[in-house]
Structures are given as C-alpha cells and as structure tokens.
C-alpha cells in the first residue's frame, strides 16, 4: 500500500519536464537508436554467432583477441547490445505514452477548427436557403459518403461554424497500436532471453527415454539452479524415412556451354543411371508416457512438432549405426554413418554415406520399398598426409563388396531419431503482438482515412461549401473523393423536374 501511495504521490510531471525525457520522446532519437542497432547487426553477420572461438581460429578467423575481448561470437547477448536494445525500448515506450496523451486530448481537432484554411470552394447553386444547403451537405457526407461527426464539445449545429468529419480507421490510433504491439514484442524477446532453454535428445526405437535437459534458462542459471528432469518419458515407436526419386541433371557448369544449350546446340538430359534419393520426409511416431500411461501419441515430422506441457519437440535429424561383417568373421564391426572405419587387412579406411532405407516415391507415381544400402568409399592417406578417396559403390544389406580381397557385408543397421526440444514462454506473446502489429500496420498503410473540415457560407447570396481534406493511407485518393463529392452535390442542386409524377 505504501508503495502504491508513493507511486501516486510521485511527481510524474517533474519527469515529463526533464530535458532528457523529451530527448527520448523524439523521433530523431528513434532513428539514432535504430542506426546503432543496425551497426551491431552488421557486426553480427561478419562474425559467426554462436560459434566457438577455437573453431573460429581454426577456420582462419583473424583478430581473435579482439573477438574474445568484445565477445563478438555472442554479440547479441553482450551487455552493450542489450543496453542499446533497452534504450530503443525506452524511446518507444515514451513515444507511445506521449502519443497516447496527445490522442486523448484531441488537440488536433481543436487546432484544425481554429486554423481552418479551405483548399476547395464548391458553389452550391441551391435555391433558396442556406439552411437547406447546410442540411443537404450534411446528409451527403453522412449517408452517401459515410462520414462520421467528430465532436469537440462545441456547438456543431450552427450554420457557418467549422464542422469536422472523419471516415476510416483513425490512422493515429492505428499507428499507436502497432507501436505498442512492437513494444510488446520486446517483452516477448525478453521472456525468450530470460526463460527459454533448448536441448536435444536421441530416441532409439521402443526404448523408454527420460528427458534430462543439460541446458538451463538464463534466469535459472543466474540463481544457480540446475536443470531438472522432466516428469514424462518418450517412446519412439517407429522412425520413418521417405525419399523422392530425383535423377541427376546433365547440365554444363561453364558459361559458354550453357550458352550452347540456349542456342540448342547441346541437349539437356536427366540421367536415370545416376539417380539420387532426395529426402522427402522424416517422421517419428512418438508416445508420451506419464506415470505408467501413454497420455499422447503423435507422428512428428519437420514443420509439425509435438507440444506437451509447454515444451515443443522438433524432428531435427537422425542417427544411423551400421554393423559390418568382414569375410565370415562372426564378430561384427560397429560404425556410424559418416565416420571412418578401420578394417583389418584393408589398406585405408572405409567410409559410409547416409543409409538409404524406407520408401522411395518414384517419378512415375509408384512407390517402392528401398533395399537398405550405403554408398561406400575408401579413404587412403599417403606418406605426406594427403588423403585420396575412391568410390567403391553401393553396399546393399546382406550383399557384399570386395576390397583388397576382403568381403565387406552390411549385416545390420539401427536408426535413431534425433529431436530437439525447447521451452520458450516468449513465443505466445510474440504471436499475439506480432499479428496485432501487422494488422494495425496494414490497416494504417494500405487503408484509407479521410478527415474533412468544412464550413458553409454565402457569397453573393449563393451558398458555397468550403472544405479542407486530409487523407492518409495508400487507398485514400483525394481526386476521386472530390469527384464523388461533386457528383452528389450536383445531384442535390439539380432543379426539380415538375413533370415527373411523385
């Protein structure tokens, strides 16, 4: 209560009278802060974000001491970047607050009324009364052109007074709304920054897998809290891989030959014998186990994750383990796809490409079960350390390849699904504020808003309409509007045809 009392008694006006406050409320400041952020963004694209300094040096990265000192590989979490973002947020918050006060005060309405300078003067050849003209014009604006009255507390019914009417969504309020929504996006970013964490998990078929994150959110980390095991388990019932048949294109790489294709001197061909398997989909059939019961079942794939208890599980990758038999040796050699395997009696090391298995969707619309195989290569290193790679061809399951008189057989394989999972409480706020920002911005920019200040008076006993138009939005067209208005005014001033029966 005392805090509330103190807040109420605090002299807020004193803050608003501060020069620094008004510096923060200026558009120039916004542009400067945006410029500072652009500078950081550019730096962030030069140095690989999230990378390790050792990898950076190994890849030939320069100025390593400079990079370490300024933490340039984690630039967007450095205090200086966060401070810049905070300053922009303060600027945004003050600007929206001041704009809000201005919108409530309706100062613009009063100013427009006081400083009425007509940009159009349209004579109304109406007979006989000024009062009729006044009512007629009012009806046109209200019923035909669908304007609404803007009251300012003053007497609006008087002939000769300036009336202000409006049509369309108020561009000022829309501008204000999308700025507020952007400010809320900052809140979303902050929640992500403080509370989000992510990790990965490898699931083997039909095994209950506990989920023990190794990562922790920044907030928990700063309080010394370690990661906690989640109170549910996952079971991978099936891992499914699908491929599209994608024959290789025989197309030249050099520019002159490409020109020859354009001239029709060379042909373009798809080669069936060199067909490749283009990944179509990876799917994991999952079960969520809580206690002893399955509480959720879902087949996830890329772009279709699993949501459970605020955590989202994504299909990230897969692992493939192979068991290789050499000649008739009953002891199988275990290896992983992409890793080199030393086989006794073979000069060099064997390397296996991605195991192709699952379903093949062929170009002619048929499907086919792929007989599992891996592309096999032999890597040999000479005395100078240079490695030479030789393609050995397809190693199909239960079939053999002969290398240095050794029979290599792919006996078994095991696939595991690699999932990433993430907890991020900032996402819902970003969804709501992002959609609101885009809606308001679209209505503000693409929509049409008209404000008209008008007065009716008489010159040489002929009533005339004096008006001033202000438009905003790309759909607003002043010329078209004046044409429409003239059309309705002409209709109003048309002489009555006495021969026409009523």
């Amino acid at each position, binding site marked *: 209560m005392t805090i509330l009392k103190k807040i109420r008694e605090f002299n807020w006006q004193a803050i608003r009278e501060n020069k620094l406050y008004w510096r923060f409320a200026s*558009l*120039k400041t916004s*542009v400067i802060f*945006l*410029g500072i*952020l*652009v500078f950081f*963004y*550019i730096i*962030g*694209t*030069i140095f*690989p*974000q*999230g990378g390790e300094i050792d990898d950076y040096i190994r*890849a*030939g990265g320069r100025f390593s001491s400079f990079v370490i000192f300024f933490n340039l590989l984690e630039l*967007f979490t450095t205090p200086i970047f966060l401070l810049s973002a905070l300053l922009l947020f303060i600027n945004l918050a003050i600007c929206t607050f001041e704009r809000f006060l201005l919108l409530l005060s309706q100062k613009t309405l009063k100013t427009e009324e006081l400083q009425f300078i007509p940009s159009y003067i349209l004579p109304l050849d109406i007979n006989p009364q000024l009062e009729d003209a006044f009512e007629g014009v009012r009806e046109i604006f209200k019923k035909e052109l669908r304007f609404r009255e803007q009251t300012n507390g003053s007497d609006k019914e008087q002939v000769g007074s300036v009336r202000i009417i409006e049509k369309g969504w108020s561009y000022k309020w829309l501008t204000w709304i999308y700025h507020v929504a952007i400010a809320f996006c900052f809140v979303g970013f902050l929640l992500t920054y403080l509370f989000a964490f*992510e990790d990965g998990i490898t699931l083997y078929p039909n095994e209950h897998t506990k989920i023990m994150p190794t990562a922790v959110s920044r907030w928990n980390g700063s309080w010394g809290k370690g990661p906690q095991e989640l109170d549910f388990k996952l079971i991978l019932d099936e891992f499914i891989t699908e491929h*599209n048949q*994608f*024959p290789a*294109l025989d*197309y030249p790489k050099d*520019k002159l030959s490409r020109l020859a*294709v*354009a001239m029709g001197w060379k*042909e*373009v*061909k*798809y080669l*069936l014998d060199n067909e490749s398997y*283009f*990944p*179509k*989909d*990876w799917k994991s059939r999952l079960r969520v186990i809580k206690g002893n019961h399955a509480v959720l079942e879902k087949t996830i*794939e*890329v*772009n*279709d*994750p699993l949501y459970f208890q605020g955590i*989202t599980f*994504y299909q*990230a990758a897969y692992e493939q383990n192979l068991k290789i038999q050499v000649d008739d040796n009953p002891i199988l050699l275990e290896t992983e796809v992409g890793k080199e395997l030393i086989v006794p009696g073979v000069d060099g090391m064997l390397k296996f490409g991605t195991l192709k298995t699952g379903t093949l969707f*062929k*170009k*002619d619309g048929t499907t086919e079960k792929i007989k599992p195989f891996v592309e096999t290569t032999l890597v040999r290193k000479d005395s100078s350390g240079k490695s030479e790679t030789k393609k050995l061809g397809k190693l199909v399951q239960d079939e053999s390849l002969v290398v240095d008189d050794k029979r290599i057989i792919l006996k078994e394989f095991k696939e595991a699904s690699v999932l*990433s999972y*993430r907890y991020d409480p900032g*996402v819902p706020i*970003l969804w709501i504020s*992002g959609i609101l*920002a*885009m809606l308001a*911005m*679209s209505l503000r*920019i*693409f929509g049409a808003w008209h404000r008209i200040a008008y007065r009716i008076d008489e010159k040489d006993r002929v009533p005339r309409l004096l008006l001033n138009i202000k438009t905003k939005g*790309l759909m607003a067209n002043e010329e078209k509007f004046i044409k429409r208005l003239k059309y309705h005014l002409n209709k109003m001033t048309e002489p009555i045809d006495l021969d026409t029966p009523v």
Partner: protein
Amino acid sequence: MSNLETLLSRDAFLLSVDIRLFWFVALIYGASLVLYIIHLVTKKTGPGKLATNILWFGVITHAGLILLRTFEGQRAPFQTLYESLSWFAWSAAVTYLYVERKWKDIYLSGILVAALSMGACLYALLTRSPAVEPLSPPLQSWWFEWHVVLAFLSYAVFVVSCSIEIVYLAIKPSLKKGLGTDFGINMDNLESFHAQSFRLALFGFPLLTFGIFSGAAWANEAWGRYWGWDPKETWSLITWTVFAMYLHSVSIPKWRGMPASIFNILGFICMIMTFIGVNWVAKLLGIPSLHLYAM
C-alpha cells in the same frame, strides 16, 4: 521406352524450353535496358516509350515462363536461387510498369529496373543449376509460399522506389538551377514524382514485415527457434530497420530531403545484400547459414 524414361524425356524437353525462354526473357530485358539508355543519352521520348513496350512484352513472356516452371515442378516456383532470381526479376519489372503508367513521359527510372531484371536473369542462367528439385522437408510448409512471395514483393517495390529516388536526386539540382530537362520531369511534377518513391517504400514495408514474421513463424515450426541470428535473417532485419529509419526520417522536417533519400537508397542496398550479397559474404567468411537452399 519405359514409362519412367518417357517422363524423363518429357521433363528434359520442358526444361530445355524453360531455359531457352529464360534466355529470351533476359534478352528482352537487355533490349529494354539499351533503349532506356538511348532515351537517357538522346533525351528523346520515343526510345523510352519503346523500351517500356518491350518491357511489357518481356514481362508477359516471363509470366508464361513462371507458369511453365510451376507446371514442371508442380509447386510454387521459388525454391532455389535460380527460381527466386527469376521471380525477383519479373516482380520488379511488373511493379515498375504498374507504377510507370501514372508517369506518361518519365522513363528514366526504368534503367535501374531493367538492368536489375536482366542482371538477375543472367546471374541465374550462368551460375545456378536449372534443375527442378522436389521440395526438401523444411520447405514443405504453409509458410514457405507466404514468406517468399511477400518478401520478394517487398523487394520489387523497394527496387522501384530506389530507382525513382535516384532519378529524383539526379534531376533535382539541374531543375533547381532552372536548366530544365527533357525527361518529362519539371518543377510542377517533380515533388509528386518523388512522393511516389515514399509511397512505394511505405507499401513495401508491411510486406517486408510480414515476410520476416512469416519466416520467424516458419523457423519456429521447423527448427524450434524463431530467430537464430543467421546471416540472412540478420540482414533482413537490417533492411527492415533501415527502411524504418527512412519512414521515420521523412517525418522529421530537417531530415526530409537528402538524409531521408540516403536512407531509402541504403535500404535498397541492404535489400540486395539480404537477397544475394549475404550468400557471398557467408561463403567468403565460412559462416554456416540455415538458408543454404537459397544460395
């Protein structure tokens, strides 16, 4: 001949038609560029008018090419850089022609647009593979079409906005000195011509915003995080921020002239950087990118 072989020979035939048509379109854009340059040098309206008519022909032919590509791939034709360059060239030329209708005898801004459209076509034809690839798993998303279409529409709009801005900056000094020009621009229509540049940037800004938002939503669905400070993402944010600076600076009376114009041109440069330049820089610096399929 098996059914599969028939299909492959049909695809190869369609692809060779596609490639030849694309070269033809690049040639048309090139012819239009040459005529716009002749208009610049001779100060005569005729070549400008002809250049625009040729550009119309190019755009219509290019629309046919895009439809053919859609038929070939049975999907939206902007998966690879080859396809997105084609889409970019077409959308920039279409936007320019739509805007140019209002300016009967002003053709100067067509130079940059025709040059970029031709350049994009040639870059695709000479350096990228034209193979019609199936959609890879991350691209099989509802967001894919929205993200690319809106981002590229905004790019097209920014190209035209920048070309008008450059013409304005080039013409204004001589008009102010009372020298006059023969390019259809005079003191009476100069400011309204320039206002078109602002209106275009204003039009493109929400499109770019939605392009970035849809990209973030898609990334959240596919990779589990809406923002990863990937070079392409960051450059799109740079482009957005620079255009935000431009739109704000127009509201500042003292910055309304040259400073605002500079922001508009900078925004365009950032946009080109986002689209093409970042790929080169990422490769040059060895920075891994999640947008590899767009390289």
